[in-house]
């Protein structure tokens, strides 16, 4: 349908579109150390893109996410700890940027509520059971497996 040169023209135009699109897709970061690479994967997953609709840095294509990933990369290579890197991000963008809520006094309720809930129900149940168990027999009834 298209002549050879027409096809080539389209493909070049096509690719120019790609290269100039500012939201780049997959960024490549070269690591020599596999531990650093693992830490990078981990950090970019628990850091939130400040302007996206609920994406982490790893999944996000936005310019800001690219820059933040670059910063994580540089800091890892310069020897900073995970804690320091997360603190850096929090200092500038607030706790919003942390998908993993910190373990501090402000978040005490957040982290403990599920456990408290479970314990409350459990104790409530045990209490009820102890008070109401006088009306059953321990006779072995016919087996009924469904």
């Amino acid at each position: 349908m298209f002549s050879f040169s027409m096809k080539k023209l389209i493909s070049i135009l096509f690719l120019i579109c790609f290269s100039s699109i500012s939201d780049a897709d997959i960024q490549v970061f070269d690591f020599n150390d596999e531990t650093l690479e693992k830490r990078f994967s981990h950090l970019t997953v628990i850091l939130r893109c400040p302007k996206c609709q609920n994406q982490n840095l790893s999944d996000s294509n936005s310019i800001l996410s690219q820059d933040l990933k670059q910063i994580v990369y540089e800091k890892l290579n310069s020897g900073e700890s995970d804690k320091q890197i997360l603190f850096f991000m929090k200092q500038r963008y607030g706790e919003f940027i942390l998908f993993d809520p910190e373990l501090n006094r402000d978040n005490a309720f957040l982290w403990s509520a599920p456990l408290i809930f479970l314990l409350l129900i459990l104790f409530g149940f045990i209490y009820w059971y102890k008070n109401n168990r006088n009306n059953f027999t321990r006779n072995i009834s016919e087996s009924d497996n469904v």
Partner: protein
Amino acid sequence: MGNESQKMMNKLTPILSISIFVVAFIFFYWLIGEDKTELPSQLIGRSTPAFKVADVYDSSIIHTEKEFEGKIILVNVWASWCPSCYNEHPYWKQHSKNKDITLVGLNYRDTKEKALEFLHQQGDFYQWTLFDEKGRLGIEFGVYGAPETYLIDNKGKVRYRHVGIVNTKVFNEIILPLVEKIKQES
């Protein structure tokens, strides 16, 4: 369980559940109107971050935060790729005339040619413009989009961040009263 406490439990449960229900309803109703995308600035009440950034016209001129000392500064974050910035820019023509404030531009993540073209075509109302090509200064400020505007007092403390266009309404109703307040503090 004693009869007394049982009766109390029976009365308490509906009251408790109804009150939780009402509170939940009010809460969600309020929540519906809120803007979910707005992030509060972490810099409010803190000092301007230290920086060394080149001027957009002349890369041999390096600006630092020391130039802000003693002045009330408005840092306006803009870029040629930001559509709203074209809407906002004409307002600065008027607002930059205000004698109390010094308007500084922060060109964020742009190319020099496009930034200069913007200033040439739309007008340059900034006292000076920082050329933050890599966006690192923006990150120090906690910038997450454009346009954004930061109000910094004469002691170098960040007092307010506005996300979005600073039109006349925003300038008169939010910025100016804060500027007055800062003037009174000195």
